[in-house]
């Protein structure tokens, strides 16, 4: 999922925030900032005093910041739950005087997977176009039979199916992510 990097970055940020808050609390309570601070009450510090003195305008500002942060978090959550990294319909380049040609991603991916599945030694194949429709990436996932010539099969996928996909999109530099897996066999037991 394309939100994975955001998730990781936000969780790292949250972890750093926890460490910072916890460390400040622990260091203060164990006297790292001096005995008077150690024995002071939790709000009896410069930040607490400042908030107490400027609460009239500071709290509305904090509320506004809370609104911004909540909206950003809402966008993050929506991206997490509802968005997709699939590419939309692709407009093919070329002469548009007689109209324009649009390619449905499923038309291409169905053709690609059909072709790859027809190769001997291929157990299954799926494909999808991801990213922006103007510069998509093609992702192919294919499971190969363990007994197949894996190197030759990969070469065939790259030189035939991938080439056909690039021709269909009229994009010889179409980025292609090819994920190959090998079907598992049960371990052999000698009798």
């Amino acid at each position, binding site marked *: 999922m394309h939100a994975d990097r955001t*998730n990781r970055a936000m*969780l790292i940020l949250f972890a750093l925030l926890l460490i910072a808050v916890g460390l400040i*609390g622990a260091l*203060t309570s164990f006297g790292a900032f001096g005995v008077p601070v150690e024995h002071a009450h939790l709000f009896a510090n410069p930040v607490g005093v400042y908030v107490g003195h400027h609460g009239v305008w500071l709290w509305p500002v904090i509320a506004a910041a809370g609104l911004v942060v909540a909206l950003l978090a809402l966008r993050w959550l929506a991206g997490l739950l509802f968005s997709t990294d699939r590419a939309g319909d692709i407009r093919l380049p070329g002469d548009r005087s007689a109209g324009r040609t649009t390619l449905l991603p499923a038309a291409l991916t169905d053709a690609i997977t059909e072709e790859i599945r027809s190769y001997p030694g291929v157990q299954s194949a799926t494909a999808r176009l991801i990213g922006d429709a103007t510069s998509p990436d093609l992702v192919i996932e294919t499971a190969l039979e363990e007994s197949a010539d894996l190197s030759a099969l990969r070469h065939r996928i790259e030189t035939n199916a991938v080439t056909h996909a690039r021709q269909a999109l009229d994009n010889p530099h179409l980025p292609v992510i090819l994920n190959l897996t*090998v079907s598992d066999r049960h371990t052999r037991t000698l009798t």
Partner: protein
Amino acid sequence: MRLINRPLAALLSLAVITVGVLIIIEVAADRIVNHPALIHWHRVYDWAQRTSWTQGSVRVGSILIVILGVVLLLAELRRGKPQRLPVDSEVTDAAYTRRGVAATIRGAVNDVDGINHSTVTVKRRKITVSATTAGRQPYTAQSLREPATEAARHRLDTLALTPAPTLSVRVTTRSR
């Protein structure tokens, strides 16, 4: 890790939204009706006014927060097992899945006469094969180590992984 991150991220975003909305509601309520709306924050305020940093609950809470943060940070920064191992290809961004590499090497080793069972562990830079023999003559662990290594090596070479992981093969005789 990605599968754990998704629910964690959803929980964190929900928590942030909740806190943000609560702050807005409480600030608005305080300004309009001069009274807490949902959270009785005056109690929290009073507790903080009479609690010193030396209180045990503050110390324990601070340490727990640090531990939680460190655990989360280490979990996020830790490089897990690779999901895909890149292949030397100029045409595509090709890679074998970790399970796929393990399956094909396991298959190659299991095809060696005398090998009864094998397990393959694939890490980013090292592949470890642990094979067991049937435990009967003439298939001794020592005599099968070379053919098992050769089979695994040959299969690994055909995958053309880049960088090529190192291979370690261990053959043991099955205990009766």
